[in-house]
């Protein structure tokens, strides 16, 4: 993949993301995340594991700025997100790529337009959009499906569109919530190789997953959540 023109860094990149004593609760309920502190270094690759309801999705949504912590601080690329204005959060999100288990593609748009969305939203020139999106769709093997709408694609194809959309902005951090949850094992493996390639060209990656086979197969360290509390585990040995 030929990367789109990299964005000029305003400040020297520090940690990709760091959480400091973070707690999160919904509508005055009990804390779903408690006293969570962690630092993700640039260029790292982590699995995020834990049983259902342990708070993996909540943690990811803090990271992609869909939620603000009820206490503690979240720093993204060295910038405090706690009190940032909505407009600033939008700009910060452009340096993230997010992949969902249910893909969250827009069914009324073609695969091409879905992948183009982050660029168009950022006001990238149409010529650049055309070039980058076409290249990226080739890279994920969907050059013949560009004009199809998501309902006409298989699950694996949809997830590849979703991954292309997540990385078209050349994000510094890729967050994936159960990206292989809705596809079979062979396709899951293929998707994982895409993430590994993205990691190799410099993105930090965090993948929340239930898939033990993947965690065993790829030697990356784990962040493990249990009842909203985080423990770190070394990479599995294979």
């Amino acid at each position, binding site marked *: 993949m030929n990367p789109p023109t990299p964005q000029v860094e305003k400040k020297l990149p520090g940690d990709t993301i760091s959480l400091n004593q973070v707690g999160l609760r919904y509508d005055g309920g009990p804390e779903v995340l408690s006293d969570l502190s962690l630092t993700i270094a640039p260029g790292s690759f982590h699995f995020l594991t834990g049983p259902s309801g342990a708070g993996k999705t909540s943690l990811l949504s803090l990271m992609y700025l*869909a939620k*603000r912590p009820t206490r503690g601080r979240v720093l993204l690329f060295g910038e405090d997100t706690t009190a940032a204005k*909505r407009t600033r959060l*939008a*700009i910060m999100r452009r340096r993230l790529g997010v992949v969902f288990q249910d893909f*969250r593609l*827009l069914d009324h748009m073609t695969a091409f337009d879905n992948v183009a*969305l982050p660029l168009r*939203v950022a006001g990238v020139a149409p010529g650049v959009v055309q070039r980058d999106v076409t290249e990226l769709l080739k890279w994920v093997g969907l050059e013949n499906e560009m004009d199809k709408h998501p309902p006409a694609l298989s699950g694996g194809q949809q997830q590849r569109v979703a991954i292309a*959309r997540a990385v078209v902005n050349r994000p510094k951090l890729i967050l994936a919530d159960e990206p292989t949850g809705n596809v079979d094992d062979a396709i899951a493996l293929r998707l994982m190789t895409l993430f590994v390639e993205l990691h190799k060209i410099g993105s930090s990656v965090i993948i929340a997953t239930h898939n033990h086979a993947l965690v065993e197969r790829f030697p990356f360290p784990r962040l493990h959540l249990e009842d909203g509390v985080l423990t770190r585990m070394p990479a599995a040995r294979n």
Partner: protein
Amino acid sequence: MFTLRSDLPLRGGGSGRFVASLVMVLVFIAAFAVTLSSYVGVLISGWERGVSGTLTVQVPAGENFDAEVAKTLDVLARHPAVAHASLVPRAQVDALLKPWIGEGAVKDLPLPALIDVEMRDSDPAAVAAVDASVKAAAPRAVIDEHRVGLARVASFARGLGGVAAAIIVLVTAALAVTIIFATRASLTECAQVIEVLHVVGAKDGYVAGQFARRALLQAVTGGVAGLALYAPALGIVAVLAARVDPEILPPAHLPLAHWLALALLPPAAGVLAMLSANITVRRTLAAKI
């Protein structure tokens, strides 16, 4: 960079057709209000041009009729405040009355003599002086000061104009409220799309722009349809009006400004819809995290 490409689904969907048809009705109503207001303006200025500084003196039929008429004409002709006085010929009076009471009846009526008076000076003191002189010459003569009658007709007409203005204000408010509620409904409908737009880094302004553009298109479409509906309706009214005797309903040539105002209704509806949608989306989104 303006593009018609939209990130929102249902561009021509149910809520879109609802907004467009409502705007159509509102623009149709507003167009009639604009025409009414223009027509009233033309009538008033026509009346004022025609009758300002004029009086009519009526000398009722009766004994010494011809002598009284001659004496009154003489007094008026010599009065310093009067520029010109002339007897309205009987044939013209008949013609004025014919549409109201019919040709046969007019012939035998003991009609008063009408004297048109053009005043050199039409302030109330001068009118009073003329009145006194006329009364001295012909005690039963009546001075009809057009301004009084005109003032009443004009205030009635201005009332109609006020109603027209009120209609335009109400229609504008109705349009804004329609767009606000349609946009809110649409925001709920499109919650998932908005979530995706946010995840990929869209600012609230971008999302608001999407809704605003859609509202603009719907309102302009509805507005043009409203005018398309209005044109034949105005044509029918104009044809019916042209069949009325011009003495009862004077023909009015509507000014260019009126037609321009009509042409501006669809774009005005579009801009109003765009602003309403934009503000609604920004406010709704600003209340989130």
